[in-house]
C-alpha cells in the first residue's frame, strides 16, 4: 500500500442506503482540507456483510472498525485518528450488553469466527478497479492454469478438493466439469447462475457487487478445463448494481487481455456475456435457466436428460453457482491439501464423502448480528447463532432456524449442535440450499412461516407439471384454513400425504423440495399446528384471525388519556369511546386487522 492509511468506505447496498456515499465525500473533503491527500486514500468497497452496523468505515492496514458513522463525525475522526493517531472509541463497535468498544475488525465476534475464501477480498478492494483485484493475487490462478497445467490436471485438482456446488444441490463440481468435458460436441458452454432466487439470501449478489473478477476468473479456469470459449452469466434483474459491476469487470478484463482471444498468448480464447433474468424463481433451476438464456419462457424439463450433455442450445453446458466459481481460483492457488483441511468428512476416495471448504451464509431474522458470514463447513448451528450471530435480541428465546430457503426446512433447539454440512442438514429434513439462514424466536409462528414459504413456491410454480401446480395449491389452502381457525384434525395427515406426493411426482426440484418447510415444521413443531387446530389459538399471535384484541382501560386512560388515535384509524369503526375517556373494541365489528395495536403509543391494546 503506497498510502499511510486507506479508509475503506463500505459502498454495499445496505451502507449506501444509510448514506455511506455522502460519508465518503465528506471524508475526501476533510482529508483534502487537512492536506492529507498524499498520505491517505479513500476506497469504496463492496458489502462488509455487517449491514446492521452501517455505514461502516475500516481503516487499513490496522483494521480499525468504525460503525454507524454520520457526516458530522468525520472532522473529528480525521483529526483524531489520521492526524493525531488516536483511534476514536466512541465510534467503534460495542457488543450487545457490554460496555467496552472493540477497535479491531477481526476481534469482533461477528468477524472472528469467519474464514474468508469466496469473500476473500471483502472490504479490501474497489470492485470497479481490476488493479485492486490483481494486487491481491487476482488472475494468478488463471495464469498458472493456462501456462502450467493441462485441462485434465485442473479437473483433477477440483475433484480432489471435494468442492461441491454452493447453489443448492451440492453436486461435486469436479465431476460435473469432467462429464461436460467428456460429453460429445465441439461447442460447449459454461454458465454462472446468479439468479439467487432464495428470498432470504444475498451472498451471490454481494460477491458480484464486491468482487466480480473472482467469478470471472473462476469461469475462465472452468472454461479452459472443459474446453469452452463462450460463457454466460445469468443475473436477476432485481440486482442492477451487480449487473453494472459485472459489465465494468468484463470491459476491464477484455482491455487487459484476460478475456477474449488468445489469453496470455496461450491460444486459449474465452468471453462472457450477461443475460438478465426476469423475475422467476424457477429460472434458478438449470434447465429453466437455459431455456431463459435461449430467450424462451423458463420452464424446466425432465431430469433424465443431463445438461452437461444436452444443455444450452442442446450443447454440453456446465452450470455453476456464483460462489462455486468464486471459490475455484483459491483452490488452484492454495492447493487441495489446504482446502480439504477445512470442513467435514473425507473426500480422498470420492467427492461425495464430505463437505469441504467454507460456505457463505446470510444470517438474518431474530439475531443480533445480521449479515453475510463465511464460515468453515462443519460449524455447529449453536456457534453460528450465538458466537458469530451474537445471539437473539431483547433476551427472547430461540425457537428455530430456517436453512435452505423455500426448499429447506426449520431446525429446532434440540438440533442446535448439528454440524452444518450437506449431509447433516439433509438428514435433518432441511438442506444447505444457497445458504439462507433465518433465525426465529418465540414471537414467530411456525405455521405462518410454513405458509409463507409455500405461498412463495406456489406463486413461483411455473405450472408445467400438475403435482407441483395443483399439489402446492391444495397444501396452501389447508395451511390458510388452519391459520384462519378453520382447520380440522385430519388436515395434518392430509398435509403430510400431499407433501410426499408433490415431492415424488414433480417434474423439477422446485416441486420436489417445496413441501420441506411444511414437513419440517410438522416434524419439529407439531404442537403448534395442534394448538391452531384444536384450541383455535396462535401462541405467537401472528395468525390474526385467531387473536382477540382488547384495550386495557387503565393504560388507555392513565397513560394515553383516551387519545382516540385507534378509534380514528380503525377501518371498521369497531372502536368506541369519547375523547379523554376509556376506549373499547366492539368484538362483533372487529375484523382483527391489528391497526389499533400498531398505532397505540401507550401499549394499551392487548392481544390474546
Amino acid at each position: 500500500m503506497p498510502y499511510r492509511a486507506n479508509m475503506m468506505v463500505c459502498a454495499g447496498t445496505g451502507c449506501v442506503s444509510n448514506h455511506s456515499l455522502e460519508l465518503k465525500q465528506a471524508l475526501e473533503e476533510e482529508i483534502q482540507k487537512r492536506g492529507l491527500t498524499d498520505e491517505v486514500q479513500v476506497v469504496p468497497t463492496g458489502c462488509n456483510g455487517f449491514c446492521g452496523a452501517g455505514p461502516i468505515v475500516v481503516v487499513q492496514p490496522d483494521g480499525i472498525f468504525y460503525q454507524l458513522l454520520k457526516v458530522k463525525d468525520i472532522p473529528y475522526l480525521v483529526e483524531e485518528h489520521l492526524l493525531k493517531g488516536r483511534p476514536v472509541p466512541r465510534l467503534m463497535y460495542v457488543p450487545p450488553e457490554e460496555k467496552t468498544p472493540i477497535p479491531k475488525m477481526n476481534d469482533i465476534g461477528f468477524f472472528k469466527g469467519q474464514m474468508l475464501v469466496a469473500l476473500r477480498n471483502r472490504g479490501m478492494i474497489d470492485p470497479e478497479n481490476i488493479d485492486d483485484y490483481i494486487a491481491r493475487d487476482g488472475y494468478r490462478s488463471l495464469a498458472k492454469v493456462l501456462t502450467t497445467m493441462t485441462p485434465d490436471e485442473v479437473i483433477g485438482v477440483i475433484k480432489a478438493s471435494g468442492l461441491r456446488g454452493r447453489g443448492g444441490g451440492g453436486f461435486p463440481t469436479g465431476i460435473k466439469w469432467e462429464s461436460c468435458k467428456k460429453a460429445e460436441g465441439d461447442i460447449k458452454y459454461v454458465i454462472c447462475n446468479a439468479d439467487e432466487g432464495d428470498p432470504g439470501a444475498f451472498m451471490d449478489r454481494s460477491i458480484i457487487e464486491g468482487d466480480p473478477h473472482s467469478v470471472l476468473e473462476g469461469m475462465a479456469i472452468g472454461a479452459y478445463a472443459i474446453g469452452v470459449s463462450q460463457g454466460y452469466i445469468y443475473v436477476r434483474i432485481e440486482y442492477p448494481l451487480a449487473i453494472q459491476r459485472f459489465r465494468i469487470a468484463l470491459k476491464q478484463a477484455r482491455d487487459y487481455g484476460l478475456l477474449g482471444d488468445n489469453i496470455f498468448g496461450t491460444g486459449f480464447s474465452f468471453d462472457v456475456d450477461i443475460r438478465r433474468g426476469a423475475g422467476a424463481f424457477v429460472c434458478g433451476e438449470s434447465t429453466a435457466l437455459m431455456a431463459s438464456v435461449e430467450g424462451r419462457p423458463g420452464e424446466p424439463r425432465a431430469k433424465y436428460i443431463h445438461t452437461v450433455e444436452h444443455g444450452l442450445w442442446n450443447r454440453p453446458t456446465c452450470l455453476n453457482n456464483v460462489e462455486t466459481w468464486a471459490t475455484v481460483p483459491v483452490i488452484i492457488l492454495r492447493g487441495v491439501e489446504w482446502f480439504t483441511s477445512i470442513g467435514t468428512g473425507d473426500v480422498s476416495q470420492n467427492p461425495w464423502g464430505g463437505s469441504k471448504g467454507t460456505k457463505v451464509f446470510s444470517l438474518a431474522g431474530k439475531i443480533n448480528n445480521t449479515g453475510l458470514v463465511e464460515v468453515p463447513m462443519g460449524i455447529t448451528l449453536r456457534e453460528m447463532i450465538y458466537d458469530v450471530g451474537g445471539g437473539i435480541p431483547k433476551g427472547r428465546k430461540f425457537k428455530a432456524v430456517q436453512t435452505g430457503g423455500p426448499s429447506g426446512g426449520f431446525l429446532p433447539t434440540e438440533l442446535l449442535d448439528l454440524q452444518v454440512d450437506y449431509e447433516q442438514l439433509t438428514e435433518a429434513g432441511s438442506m444447505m440450499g444457497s445458504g439462507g439462514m433465518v433465525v426465529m424466536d418465540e414471537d414467530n409462528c411456525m405455521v405462518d412461516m410454513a405458509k409463507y414459504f409455500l405461498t412463495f413456491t406456489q406463486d413461483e410454480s411455473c405450472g408445467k407439471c400438475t403435482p407441483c401446480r395443483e399439489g402446492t395449491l391444495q397444501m396452501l389452502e389447508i395451511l390458510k384454513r388452519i391459520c384462519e381457525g378453520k382447520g380440522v384434525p385430519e388436515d395434518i395427515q392430509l398435509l403430510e400425504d400431499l407433501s410426499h406426493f408433490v415431492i415424488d411426482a414433480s417434474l423439477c426440484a422446485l416441486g420436489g423440495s417445496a413441501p420441506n418447510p411444511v414437513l419440517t415444521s410438522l416434524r419439529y413443531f407439531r404442537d403448534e399446528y395442534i394448538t391452531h387446530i384444536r384450541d383455535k389459538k396462535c401462541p405467537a399471535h401472528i395468525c390474526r384471525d385467531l387473536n382477540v384484541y382488547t384495550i386495557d382501560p387503565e393504560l388507555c386512560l392513565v397513560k394515553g388519556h383516551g387519545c382516540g388515535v385507534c378509534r380514528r384509524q380503525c377501518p371498521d369503526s369497531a372502536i368506541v369511546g369519547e375523547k379523554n375517556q376509556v376506549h373499547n373494541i366492539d368484538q362483533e365489528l372487529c375484523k382483527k386487522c391489528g391497526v389499533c395495536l400498531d398505532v397505540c403509543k401507550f401499549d394499551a391494546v392487548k392481544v390474546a
Partner: protein
Amino acid sequence: MDDLAVQTYKVQEIISRWGPKPDLVIEMLHDIQTEFKYLPEQALNQICREVGVRLATLYHIATFYNAFSLTPRGKHQICVCMGTPCHALGAPRIVEAIERHLKVKCGGTTEDLKFTLEVSGCVGTCGLAPIVIVDGELHGLVTPVNVSKVIDRYSD
C-alpha cells in the same frame, strides 16, 4: 412526431441495440419495460415483425416473467421486501399499512397512476429489516406507522 411514432422509433432503437436475434428478445423486453414502464401492445407487434418471434411466444414470455407488465405501472414504484427475514420481522403488516394508505391492493397501481405497490424477495440488507424501496431508494426499519410518511415524500 406523435406519441406512437416516438414509441416506434424507440423500440426500433432497442431492437437494433441487440440485433434482430430471437434469443435476445428477453433483453429487448427488459429495455422496453424500462423505457415505457410496461410492454405496449404495438411494441410487441413490432418485435414480432422485426425479430421474427411469434406473438403468442411474446405474450407467453411477457406473462411468464414477473419483471414484465402489460398494463402501465405507476410513476413511482413501491416495493416492500418480502424476503424471509423481513417477513419474520413484520413485512406483511407494512404491506397492509401501505394498502390502506394508498387505497391500492398489492400488485396494483393507484388510480392516479402515481404509485405501483409490489413485493420482492430479499433485497440484501436484512440488517435493516423491514425494508421498503421506493424508486430504487432503500428505506430501512420501517413500521406500519411511519411508512406512510416515507411514501408521502414521493407524492409530488
